[in-house]
């Protein structure tokens, strides 16, 4: 398995934590679509996620494909490690 620096795990975990909030709020809002507080929280964390994604990708490469992330040179989308390898 490819060795990744400790910071990979730290940044990844921050992203996973924010994404957990976003998944939970998404599901909740699907059945409570007039909860303004929850929508404000959702939009707040959506913004947080953008920042974290950028921070992670600047160090460890693209998280998403098909133009939702930028590539470095050479193309680094298909670089290991894949999620099950860390």
């Amino acid at each position, binding site marked *: 398995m490819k060795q990744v620096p400790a910071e990979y795990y730290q940044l990844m975990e921050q992203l996973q934590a924010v994404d957990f909030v976003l998944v939970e709020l*998404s*599901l909740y809002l*699907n059945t409570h679509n007039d909860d303004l507080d929850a929508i404000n929280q959702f939009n707040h964390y959506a913004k947080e996620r953008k920042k974290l994604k950028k921070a992670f990708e600047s160090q460890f490469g*693209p998280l*998403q494909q098909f133009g939702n992330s930028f590539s470095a040179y050479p193309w680094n989308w298909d670089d290991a490690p894949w999620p099950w390898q860390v």
Partner: protein
Amino acid sequence: MWLYEKKLQYPVRVSTCNPMLAKFLIEQYGGADGELSAALRYLNQRYSIPDKVIGLLTDIGTEEFAHLEMIATMVYKLTKDATPEQLKAAGLGDHYANHDKALYYHDASGVPWTASYIQAKGDPIADLYEDIAAEEKARATYQWIINLSDDPDLNDGLRFLREREIVHSQRFREAVEILKEEQGKKKIF
């Protein structure tokens, strides 16, 4: 369309190579109440369900694929360093003979996944009740696997997945109420 993200929904760690736990866990990969069944069941039901619950089915169905990847990661990590002898001793000799260490969509007893594990009745209440039952069955399965497991790192991931079943069940129950309310409104007019 769908977008892949190069990350797990929740970190997956295992303490040691343990092919016997992998054998049990594969129940949630290709078993009747596993994550593959869940994802395919919800995403397929979307096309004939009222608009009010399509978003919910889309999001939960999508999350199930993230859970499928977590299970795959667990199985991979539990078996990657195992010798053929260890796999045989864990009851995975039959699996090894056919697949080596490749994952395959079958249950803990080796029965391959089949579409008859999922239903699509076209009746919104029937479909949502099936979904609630599926979540409860998956929650119970996670509990049985946790009871069989002595790996604290693995159990951390399994407890996360068990909790997600509870949340999904709750959201599906709310969806039933939303549909009942809708139906009630129609009767007034």
